[in-house]
């Protein structure tokens, strides 16, 4: 019986050695674009996918969306890129899980002559240059500007007097680092604004809750919070509620998620910097299609930012 199994296996593999791979053209000869996201269990990326899908349908390209299970799993994202390249995609749009790490995967895309559009999170310029990886364009909001917007708002809203606690994203992530830099630069000028604590909560809601709860224990004087993402901000909102300090502490977040907008409308949160992920997805696919058609793209395609407060929340 064993021999028969082996025989069958050999048969299958030898049949298969005839190469059936052809360049990926979806149904009806449509070009295929891959959109590789950090994760799909975050509303930001779900919105991005929606925008990308609309653009793909409109432009008549087949869209393949893949993401790692966890946002920080850059090795899994690398595997996905390698696998997508195998299907002969004509362009790759990617939101890197790691600005430096993903460059190793993009080298393989370059070698397979797949043009790259980087979305939302920039590549590390040095790592990309060292590896000889060139992105056709970067589609995204300026996270530094967004952080600055949040900082300037806080200075104004508090009349230049605040004790601020900051919830950071995963250390070493370009997105969070830029927002943080923008925020710090904006409040630097205000002498009455002091950052009394700054801790990573790794982009997560439950960690935002725990970290802020601990922060409040150590620094009961905190009257303002800047969280580098709304999920962490919403965690902090809950921690504030648990401490019975709702309304006494201003929370400024980033991303303007639906839940955050609700919190802003109800007054438990102060403001959030809105990004437009669906817009990013749309622009990413439009750019990818332009590249496929041989058009030249600008180095950067900026997607607008907007501060959502109680006055303009919808």
């Amino acid at each position, binding site marked *: 019986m064993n021999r028969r*199994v082996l025989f069958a296996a050999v048969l299958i593999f030898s049949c298969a050695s005839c190469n059936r*791979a052809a360049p990926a053209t979806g149904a009806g000869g449509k070009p295929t674009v891959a959109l590789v996201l950090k994760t799909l269990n975050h509303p930001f990326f779900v919105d991005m996918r929606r925008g990308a899908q609309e653009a793909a349908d409109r432009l008549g390209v087949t869209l393949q969306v*893949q993401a790692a299970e966890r946002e920080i799993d*850059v090795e899994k994202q690398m595997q996905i890129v390698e696998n997508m390249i195998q299907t002969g995609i004509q362009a790759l749009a990617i939101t890197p899980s790691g600005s430096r790490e993903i460059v190793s995967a993009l080298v393989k895309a370059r070698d397979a002559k797949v043009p790259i559009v980087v979305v939302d999170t920039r590549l590390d310029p040095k790592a990309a240059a060292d590896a000889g990886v060139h992105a056709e364009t970067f589609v995204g909001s300026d996270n530094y500007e967004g952080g600055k917007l949040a900082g300037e708002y806080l200075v104004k809203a508090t009349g230049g007097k605040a004790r601020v606690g900051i919830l950071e994203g*995963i250390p070493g992530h370009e997105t969070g680092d830029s927002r943080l830099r923008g925020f710090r630069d904006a409040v630097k000028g205000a002498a009455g604004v002091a950052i009394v604590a700054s801790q990573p909560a790794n982009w997560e809601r439950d960690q935002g809750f725990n970290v802020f709860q601990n922060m409040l224990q150590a620094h009961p004087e905190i009257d303002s919070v800047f969280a580098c993402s709304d999920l962490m901000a919403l965690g902090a909102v809950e921690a504030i509620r648990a401490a019975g300090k709702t309304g006494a502490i201003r929370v400024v977040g980033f991303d303007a998620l639906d839940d955050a907008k609700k919190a802003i409308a109800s007054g438990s949160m102060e403001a959030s910097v809105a990004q437009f992920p669906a817009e990013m997805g749309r622009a990413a696919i439009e750019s990818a299609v332009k590249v496929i058609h041989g058009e030249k793209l600008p180095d950067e395609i900026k997607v607008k930012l907007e501060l959502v407060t109680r006055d303009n929340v919808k």
Partner: protein
Amino acid sequence: MNRARRFGTVIGLVVLCAILWILTPYFLTVSNLLNVAEQTSINAIVAVGMTFVILSAGIDLSVGSIVAFAGVVLGLALRGDQPLAVALALALATGVVCGLVNGLLVSVGDLPPFIVTLGTMSIARGAALLVTEGRPISGFAPSFRVLATGRVGFVPAPVIATAVVYLAAHVALTRTTFGRYVYAIGGNEEATRLSGVAVRFHKAMIYAVSGLMSAIAAVILTARLNSAQPIAGMMYELDAIAATVIGGTSLMGGDGTLAGTLVGALIMGVLRNGLNLLGVSSFLQQIVIGGVIVVAVLLDTMLKRNRM
């Protein structure tokens, strides 16, 4: 005796490949198969250590954290301009020491492996975050990166490393007294002790082997990503346990093979790759992978029952 079961997993792998071959033209190409082999190598190597541990009726939940810790030690050493050989030795030593700590707590401390390695999982992760202040260390010399990007002929270096590791571990497990004791301890620890075997020593060594394997995986991972991340390797313990169990190793210990584990790791790698090629939603992928694990164990149990 367990030949029927071993072939069960091989048949599973062949069937899986055949299905993917039918469903997508991109699966059975030389470049894709090498791609799968390369992607599988890290889990396959971690799973070698896990197989040793599970064969001895233990469990090691700390492997993923050890991958991260050994990785950042490697990264810091390379950053500190240590020669490549020194950096590699430091990384491997880190893995072995972590494993030994596990092993001594389990054997001399007589503590349940689940609890010990749950604790060291957190300790090693914290240590990795602490020494790096949470930031990845990246950008290494090509002479190091070649460990992941290099090719021998057309075979990627990580695949060669995996083959060497499996050969060496297979010999250790089947041709040495240490290997025999691994099975004996898992089969009946008390009887093994009574027959005069230094059970404590060998159990400590088993966990040290697991730590070493995690460190080897860390070297490949760090070279592959060109970065040592303190948050790397999360959930690797579950992938390694899955590969071992799909490969037919009994969680009760004493029964299983490394060949089975390799096939188990390949099944998981092929599945992930195939689901990507097919463009299956990433949520559905998790369900499929979980289903395969359950079905594999179910088949295994049924075959075992038939044998009795």
